[in-house]
């Protein structure tokens, strides 16, 4: 911290004053760093010994940070650390919210993970409530859920499953790593008093289609809006 010598005329006789100034700089640095708001100069002064000039300390700190990636800047009579203007491209100006999944979306996602391949009717059967179209749309948009194919039953309902991005995001190596009943109980997530017949399925982990599934046809894809309708030129 060679810069400290530049602050004032501190001769060799002022070693104690220098140490006191250095400590004051550390204190101001930590307080301004940890504060969520710019810190009033008066508040900083109150935290320093009476014989230390807060302005001297702030000037010294500002000088030390002058050429750095972060600067100590004055905002009115307050002080804050700010990213150096020429590096502002590294940070967003305004916060861009990361979207949290709704409770319903989390439930549907979990059911798809455990019960895949699963149809929308089956999801609703498990949850006991109707699943809004929007919930599945959000999950598809998140990239964690995909349409796998169609169930070979009347109506040929679409089956849903999870994606690689799902495993990646949730830190799972494979679907088989999802905890079973015993582990859910053990971790306190399931009541130990759950009925004996309660089971949690072992997820169907195969990328291949299940026996009762069939792949989408081009027509299906068009219907689902996944493929632009073929033009008349064909």
């Amino acid at each position: 911290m060679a810069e400290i010598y530049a602050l004032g005329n501190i001769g060799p006789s002022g070693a104690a004053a220098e140490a006191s100034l250095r400590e004051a700089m550390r204190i101001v640095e930590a307080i301004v760093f940890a504060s969520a708001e710019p810190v009033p100069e008066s508040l900083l002064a109150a935290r320093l010994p009476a014989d230390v000039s807060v302005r001297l300390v702030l000037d010294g700190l500002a000088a030390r940070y002058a050429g750095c990636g972060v600067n100590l800047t004055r905002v009115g009579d307050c002080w804050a650390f700010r990213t150096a203007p020429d590096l502002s491209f590294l940070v967003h100006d305004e916060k861009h919210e990361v979207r949290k999944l709704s409770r319903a979306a989390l439930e549907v996602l979990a059911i798809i993970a455990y019960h895949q391949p699963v149809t929308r009717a089956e999801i609703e059967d498990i949850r006991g409530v109707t699943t809004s179209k929007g919930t599945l749309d959000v999950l598809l948009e998140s990239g964690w859920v995909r349409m796998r194919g169609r169930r070979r039953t009347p109506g040929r309902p679409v089956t849903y499953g999870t994606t690689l991005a799902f495993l990646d995001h949730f830190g799972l190596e494979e679907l088989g790593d999802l905890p079973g009943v015993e582990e859910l109980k053990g971790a306190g997530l399931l009541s130990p008093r759950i009925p004996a017949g309660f089971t949690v399925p072992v997820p169907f982990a195969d990328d291949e289609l299940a026996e009762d599934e069939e792949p989408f046809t081009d027509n299906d894809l068009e219907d689902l809006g996944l493929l632009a309708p073929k033009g008349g030129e064909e």
Partner: protein
Amino acid sequence: MSSALDSNARAAMEPPWDAPVREAAESPLHVDVDGFEGPLDLLLHLARHQRVDLSRISIVALADQYLAFVDRARLVRLELAADYLVMAAWLAYLKSRLLIPQPAKGEEPTGEEMAAQLAFRLKRLEAMRDAATRLVNRNRLGRDVFARGAPDELVVEKRSEFQASLYDLLTAYASQRQRQSVTAVTIASRRVWSLSDARTILTRMIGEMADWTALDAFLLRYLSRPEDRASAMASSFAATLELVREGRLEVRQDVAFAPIYMRRSTPAADAHGADEPSFGKG
């Protein structure tokens, strides 16, 4: 030294306390296990009171103290949890192995081995207690050390637009499945020694039964009131068989009505520490 002998001899023959039993039934309980987290915790407290390093502890004295404690509890008709009683049975068995010279058959563990195993468990538990204390006294984020109070969002950070943790996911799943599952559950009145109790406790004790151990005789003495013995024996035996079927335990009985020996099964595949490659980082 003679006083030590006296007190130990006394402990073996009769309760070393002379408080009248009838009064105890009316007065507040004299024995309190509320502060202890199970028998091992109680043993550790007793061991610390020997004021010696855990690896030089007198296991026999420790066992005596524990057994005296259990006897005392039974005297005042305090219902002790089953695992306290199983530990008592185990310690009574261990003591018999330590004090009665055994023919070197090689099949059964020596008393010294069993004592070392117990001392190891106590020492390991104590080490973890100390570690927890040291951990919690470190400079902690948000208490002693602080992060930037006014963070900016980084442009470079590649985040998925949606955020959820595995914990969120599992909580959502477990709670909604639970909601949907039939909730008409009648909770069976708890016996001291139900089948699931038996199973849990035996499972926990398998680690100690590295070699043939005859526990049943001791279980009988400590497990429950005489009228419950048949059911206690039955459920612990049933639990034993269940564990045998799962390959976690072996049982042996030389002739009919002879003591039943059990030990942890040690298949070659039993690879402690052989984890799947861990997923996720950090």
